């Protein structure tokens, strides 16, 4: 009955003035640039400094190395962004990836070296774990931070139990895993393509669909979202399930990269990296704010920095100091630029 809320009279007048920002996925790049200019600046600065210091830093090869090294963190940061936008947090992403890694390798082995069985099993476990997280938060009424802190310990334990704490299986005899870990499409590593795919899909979801709108609404004001008829619970469970699935993808890539299922090694600590990237990329940890563009830029910045410091042969202790300092500087610059009044606590 209420299908056409727009009186036709207004249809024409609006057309002329409607465009304040370019619509469609293509506008993304433009929007991204404007929003996160200081991150772009920081990234350019890092690239320039290390590029001057080292001739090979900006080689296509090294750019690919950076991209590949950042892929797994990038995947987790993308989904972390989604959950932070809707007011939650997932500290268990690293453990989830570890569990998925082990499961993928073990299912692969026990299915007589069938890569797809391995991956399907990992994805299924990922989805399951995600739904479990969501259910605990939504129906158990447990604060997301605590619930996923618990998950951090529990899923790690499960991965260790399943694998007996050892690296499991060996997948590099299998063409599919080798392709995932080492293959290239159009000159770019397959892993990087996967990140691009996931990031674009999530970006479109967030910016151009009603689902994304509702996620921002839930994070922005959950009472208002509820009263506006949004099924908060369903959305939250779905978001955690999405995280589980993407973390499983990360786990599968971990297996493909290292050649075997790693219960802990390689996935421990990823949660902090993912959250750092999301926060640096402009997500307000209170929810309702942020986007994939900023997060990816932050991932790129952190990856470029990491690689540059290693390329320069800088001692890991200095690397820690440099990373901490840069993180602060980037955000301070961001704040100065945005010119917000210094009122209350910084969001």
């Amino acid at each position, binding site marked *: 009955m*209420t*299908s056409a*809320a*727009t*009186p036709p009279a*207004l*249809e024409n007048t*609006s*057309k002329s003035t*409607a465009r*304040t*920002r370019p*619509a469609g996925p293509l506008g993304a790049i433009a929007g991204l640039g404007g929003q996160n200019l200081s991150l772009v600046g920081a990234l350019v600065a890092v690239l320039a400094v290390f590029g001057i210091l080292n001739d090979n830093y900006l080689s296509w090869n090294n750019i690919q190395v950076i991209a590949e090294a950042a892929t797994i963190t990038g995947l987790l940061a993308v989904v972390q962004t989604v959950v932070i936008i809707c007011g939650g947090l997932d500290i268990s992403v690293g453990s989830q990836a570890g569990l998925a890694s082990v499961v993928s390798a073990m299912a692969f082995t026990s299915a007589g070296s069938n890569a797809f069985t391995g991956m399907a099993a990992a994805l299924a476990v990922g989805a399951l774990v995600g739904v479990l997280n969501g259910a605990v938060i939504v129906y158990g009424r447990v604060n997301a931070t605590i619930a996923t802190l618990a998950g951090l310990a529990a899923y790690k334990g499960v991965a260790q139990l399943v694998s007996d704490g050892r690296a499991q299986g060996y997948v590099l005899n299998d063409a599919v895993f080798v392709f995932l870990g080492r293959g290239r499409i159009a000159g770019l590593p397959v892993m990087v393509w996967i990140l691009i795919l996931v990031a674009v899909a999530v970006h479109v979801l967030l910016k*151009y*669909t*009603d*689902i994304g*709108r*509702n996620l*921002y*609404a839930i994070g*922005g*004001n959950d*009472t*208002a*979202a*509820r*009263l*506006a*008829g*949004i*099924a908060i619970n369903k959305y939250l469970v779905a978001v955690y399930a999405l995280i589980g699935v993407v973390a499983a993808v990360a786990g599968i890539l971990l297996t493909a990269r290292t050649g075997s299922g790693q219960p802990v090694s390689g996935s421990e600590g990823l949660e902090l990296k993912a959250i750092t990237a999301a926060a640096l990329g402009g997500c307000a940890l209170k929810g*309702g*704010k942020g986007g994939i563009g900023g997060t990816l830029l932050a991932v790129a910045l952190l990856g470029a920095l990491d690689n540059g410091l290693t390329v320069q042969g800088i001692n890991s202790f200095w690397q820690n100091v440099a990373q901490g300092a840069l993180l602060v500087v980037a955000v301070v610059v961001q704040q100065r630029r945005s010119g917000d009044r210094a009122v209350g606590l910084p969001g």
Partner: protein
Amino acid sequence: MTSASRPTGDHHPTGAPHPAEARPAGDRPGADRPRSDRPGADRPGTRRPPAGPTGFADVGKHFGTVQALTGVTLDFPPGRVTALMGENGAGKSTLLKILTGDHRPSTGHVLVDGERVELRSPTQARALGIRIVPQEPEIVPHVSVAENVHVGALPTAAGRRLDRAELRRRTTADLERFGFSGLLDPELLGSDLTAAQRQLVEIMRALTGEAKLIAFDEPTSSLSEHETEALFALIDRLRAQGIAVVYVSHRMREIFRIADRIAVLRDGALVGVQDASRTTEGDLVRQMVGRDLSTLFERRAVATDRVVLDVRDVTTDHVRGVNLTVRAGEVVGLAGLVGAGRSELALALAGDLPVHSGSITLDGRPLPPGSPGRAIRAGLGLAPEERKDQALFLHRSIRENTSIAVLERLRRLRFVRRSAERDLARQYADRLRVRTPSVEQEVRTLSGGNQQKVVLARWLARRPKVLILDEPTRGIDVGAKAEIYRIIADLAEQGVALVVVSSELPELLGLADRIVVMQGGRVTGELSRAEATETAVLRLAMADDITTTTAPGAAS
């Protein structure tokens, strides 16, 4: 009452109630302020008598490209109530925020006692004796009302030990003195307060400590007559003490009841200041809007016989046994005092609060309980009372805030059609006269009244079968109010069943076909349009209160 006996009484600006203090005719009664002998007079800015005016000199303010104020020169004489009027977004709140050091002027400066001051923070303004009751109450959620009232100035005993007994005593005493005692328990947590209670806390907060100027930014927007009267009694006392009072409101009646002088703002500029006794409602409206408005509103009765909403014997936590029917095309008004349970009933109908017993049917089908989403899909919409807490996504645009409840209509394959969405937002922004450069503006940058219009736009755009509007015109200016009434009338003509909760009686009397009055969680009576008068409604609203204690402040 007890306040008169305060020996030094510097904790509260209220004191000696003069019997005949209303509207002192003489100008600048600063010399006869009764408090000139108080301690604290040595602090800068509180010297008496004032050496000069307190107010603004050529103040301008812009936010990015939005020019909120231009060249405002205005002073607030002590012992007088200066009303500040203007359309939504005219710049009233911005002006007050500059006065309290919350914003800093882009041009010009603030004067305190004739001296140019650079207010860097609210702390500094407070120290100079400037207080504000802001438009949006700011409540600390997990601490008691008593601590909320005295936040930032808690009483301490030896060292920095918090004196809880003193805190409670002061709060209780204040509640009594201000006439709010029945309405607010000092031990209640901030998070449990209703809209009106929050506003009362904000008012009490401004009245603690030593003040020379108190500004009220729409203090009555969620208060009903009863509390409003108590507040006015209070303001009368402040005036008698020689405190400068600034009063912002869109309610004409209040302005003429309380103001000595009226300053009108239009588009950020001061149009004029005149004596309240020498102006009329029509004059003011003309000054504010720039044209004449027929403020008189007459609605045609278009109610049909088809019952759309049927509420039987509904009981929730604080609402008991409510029966209510609303027909297609009918506007039912819900009246009552603070805490009468109207908002709770509305939320229960919308599925946000548990219904313990009773039945609710919509169009003959039982309304699915437990989820606002399901209620909305069944055809019920609720524009809630608290725009900031319950309705708005402050960091999103007007467009997104308007469309959030109608996305399923605006999407194609789950992709939101931007242009259709923008048209919708713009259509309602134009009709409701939302003052904004574009619909892409973040809602938090809008003035209070304009934010309220965005909330209404969302639900008007949704067009449900039953629309419940909880305090729809909170903080909305006269011009836009008329438009909202017109939209309500339109909706009724289209067969929508409307429930309007409002604490502004004239509004209800003008709008409603029928008025249901609640008190203490129960329906105490129902009045047809013909029967409904202010006295009749108030009698039902205070049915019990008449026998029990009436707040002393309300008597004046």
